[in-house]
């Protein structure tokens, strides 16, 4: 593990970094494609502890994180079309995004089936 100036942690392995932490200073936003946002319920409340997966343009799984208590998630992807799929006790939901370099914000709404 390496600590950055913000105190955020970049793992050598695959554990999800803290989803509510600021983006580490070591991340170059002119090169990285960050997809981030909040999962919320049908009532508009943020859903913490939701499992959010990033699917590529063919629908294939790319990564998965668990949302922060404020419902936040974040992925480091590449420019292109992506789908976000959230599973939670409050229900499931999808959202799609066409991402460019830099920070791409996307909201995911979940509702009981």
């Amino acid at each position, binding site marked *: *593990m390496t600590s950055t100036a913000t105190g955020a942690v*970049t*793992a*050598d*392995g*695959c*554990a*999800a*970094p803290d989803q509510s932490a600021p983006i*580490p200073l*070591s*991340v170059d936003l002119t090169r*990285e494609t960050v997809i981030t946002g909040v999962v919320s319920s049908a009532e508009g409340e943020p859903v913490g*502890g939701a*499992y959010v*997966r*990033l699917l*590529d343009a*063919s629908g*294939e*799984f*790319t*990564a*998965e*994180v*668990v949302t922060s208590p404020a419902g936040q998630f*974040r*992925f*480091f*992807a*590449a420019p292109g079309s992506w789908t976000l*799929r959230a*599973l*939670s*006790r409050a229900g499931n939901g999808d959202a799609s995004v066409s991402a460019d370099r830099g920070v791409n914000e996307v909201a995911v709404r979940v509702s009981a089936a």
Partner: protein
Amino acid sequence: MSRETALVSADWAEKNLDAPNVVFVEVDEDTTAYDAGHIPGAIKLDWKTDLQDPVRRDFVNKEQFETLLSARGIGNDDAVVLYGGNNNWFAAYAYWYFKLYGHGDVKLLDGGRKKWELDARPLTKDAVARPATEYRAQEPDLSIRAFRDETVAAIGVKNLVDVRSPDEFAGRLLAPAHLPQEQAQRAGHIPTAISVPWSKAANEDGTFKSDDELRKIYGDAGLDGGRPTIAYCRIGERSSHTWFVLKELLGHEDVKNYDGSWTEYGSLVGVPVALGDEPGEA
């Protein structure tokens, strides 16, 4: 090995939380999830601090494994039920260790921590202490572990299964997309490797697909059942998940996990690397 001996359901686990000689073990790289709430009675293992050698790039040796399990209160005759986050990646990695060191009865909890949470099953913050044991491990079973030279020699000869995401396979990404893309080694895959992302084997709640579905997935991808197989990913944990599927659920004879995986192979001097979505030539 089969689904009946290698896997337990969440229902079975919840009914057996207090069963004698059954030890639940949560395995993760980030153990803050355990600390915020774990399956009642479960102990934790940290993928990095408990299971990796602190100096060399290798995992714990036989003596270190014995010391760890003895201190955590796991006995040779205990049934060990492993679970974790990240769709059981690190739990599957630990399962592979337990097999490597010859533990008799070890199982994965189907769906891991995710299904347990989504089902709203009980979690507790209560501290868990188990009396120490005198655990004795077997010599490592290297028939399930591949090293780099045999992986290079396997190009065009054995089944090589790259279980990373399609973009990592093709060389468009260097790491899973929840991590910054800043590694220095070369991108791509081992020539002749077929791409079967680990996630193909799992449902979205983290449980494994049925044996029939799994056989079709690997058959359609071109896995030759008559040849030995080496699975790899980036650091060897996602490929443990696929190793578990091929060896423990489907019962393939000769399946190895190459735990050096792409972080080793993609940094080797002079080895062939393929780019793009096709396996490439030997």
